[in-house]
């Protein structure tokens, strides 16, 4: 299954600058389907968890007010080339995906 996640991680000295883009509809649960007239059920990422070499470096808690196909950027120290950065997301329906990348 194709990954829903794209990560770009740039190292400058010991700081990793991370940008992530995740494919997800982030439905609020209030939107009405123009064809059927029915309300589209809520379907949104609730958490992103980033670890570097297994150590948590960020947890992002999302409500339905985060935009569709969420973009998220952050930075952390103590990073070095060869580190394994992992992003895991989970949504309110129990779906999940994750991606690992090596810092260069």
């Amino acid at each position, binding site marked *: 299954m194709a990954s829903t996640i794209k990560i770009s991680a740039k190292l400058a000295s010991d700081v990793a600058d991370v940008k992530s883009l995740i494919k997800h509809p982030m439905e609020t649960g209030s939107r009405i389907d123009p064809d059927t007239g029915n309300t589209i059920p809520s379907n949104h990422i609730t958490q992103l968890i980033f670890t570097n070499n297994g150590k948590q*470096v960020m947890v*992002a*808690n999302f409500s339905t*007010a*985060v935009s569709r196909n969420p*973009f998220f950027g952050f*930075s*952390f120290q103590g990073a070095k080339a060869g580190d394994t950065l992992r992003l895991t997301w989970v949504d309110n329906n129990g779906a999940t995906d994750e991606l690992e990348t090596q810092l260069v």
Partner: protein
Amino acid sequence: MQFTRRMMMQGGVALAALAMLPRTLLAAAWPQEAFGSTTASQALKAALGTDVITPSDRIDLKVPEIAENGAVVPVSIKTSLENVESISIVVKNNPRPMAASFEIPPGTLPKIASRIKMGETSDVMAVIKTSNGIYSTASQVKVTIGGCGG
């Protein structure tokens, strides 16, 4: 009331999904009550224990003055405050003002960039919790087409 039950079910499913993650990845619980709150004051009390916040000029909040598309409003926050524990984005006039919150472990820089939905013109607040207290700054974003889709 019905709205509250749905949020609780969603929170329950989200928590169940989190319980299935490997133990090493378990994060703090999703702040369900804060995200379900319908006023900024309730959301802040639920998330941070208080709505009493000190304005700070050490928080750099970047949002557009005018957002043509309320469905995709870029927000960047960084701060020179020390010992930051969390950063939250609160959109005062959204139906549920708490949009997102970010846990900042030691070693992670106190800065984030994301994109949020806004239903109408509103102040957007960046709320920073440090070991010394809770600080915020706010900017108004004018929204021409609302982005909540309801």
